[in-house]
């Protein structure tokens, strides 16, 4: 079964082992940046978690990679782009804004406005004066 591939790596899933103390950067500002970036990257092994939470081996590798690139001087956007180039849009928890996702990002406001429109029409249809 195709899931066996994942099972191999999922067998490592013991709760609560994510960020290791040895990964933590000395610079607290940079470490906060690393944690924030990690929260935006999806763990491809467990797929439901971000790499900050996940204890999969791959998550740990990418966490280290994020920190390395930050220390090397990359901006937050550059680090995210680095991972996205290799793993695709799927790895970003925050979907990129591009024509294919305009509907996704626009939906909340569109639905709200449409809802107001329907409500307004309904109010107009109501009989005026006393019932």
């Amino acid at each position, binding site marked *: 079964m*195709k*899931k*066996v*591939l*994942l099972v*191999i*790596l999922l067998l490592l899933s013991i709760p609560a082992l994510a960020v290791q103390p040895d990964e933590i950067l000395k610079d607290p500002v940079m470490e906060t940046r690393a944690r924030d970036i990690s929260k935006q990257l999806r763990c*491809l*092994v467990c*797929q439901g978690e971000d790499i900050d939470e996940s204890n999969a*081996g*791959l998550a740990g*590798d*990418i966490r280290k*990679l994020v920190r390395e690139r930050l220390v090397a001087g990359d901006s937050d956007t550059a680090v995210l782009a680095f991972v*996205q*180039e*290799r*793993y*695709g*849009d*799927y790895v970003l928890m925050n979907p990129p804004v591009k024509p294919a996702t305009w509907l996704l990002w626009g939906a909340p406001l569109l639905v709200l406005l449409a809802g107001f429109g329907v409500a307004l029409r309904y109010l107009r249809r109501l009989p005026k004066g006393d019932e």
Partner: protein
Amino acid sequence: MNTRAFIPFGIFICMIGLFAVPLLQGKDPAILPSAMIGKQVPEFTLPMATGDGKLATADMLHEGKPFLVNFFASWCVTCKGEQQVLAKFTQKTGIAVYGIDYKDTKKDVAAWLERHGNPFRATGFDEAGRIAIDFGVYGVPETFLVGGDGIIRYKHVGALKQSDMDSVFGPLLEKTK
């Protein structure tokens, strides 16, 4: 007839249709499409898994012919079955298969290759798994088909079966020629 009242119905039917597509295709949602397809194969230099020497991207591109890159590990249960399939493939087509050992120990991989066969022209040793990240690998085994020009054409996730080689890799190789 008030067509506006049918808007919920319309939206709903579209949604059902969109759900039906992946179900009827029988796709496994856990398998993700590769972001590296159409891109140049990553530059790397790795120590060899067996013996001395190094494996570099240049070595693979040297001949200008298409080749396979197979990520595997001795601790990977399903990788065992692939070795025979790969061996047969490389014998039949003459296409080079390069192996990259993912997060392993040299001792284990040597023993494993002894036991299950070594179809690889050369085997790189990616102990830290960093090169795998450059390829966008998220588990083993994964196999990449790279054209003679160095452009990645296709990625297969999971162990290769003979049927995969015949139905997918074969036709793709025809095209890249």
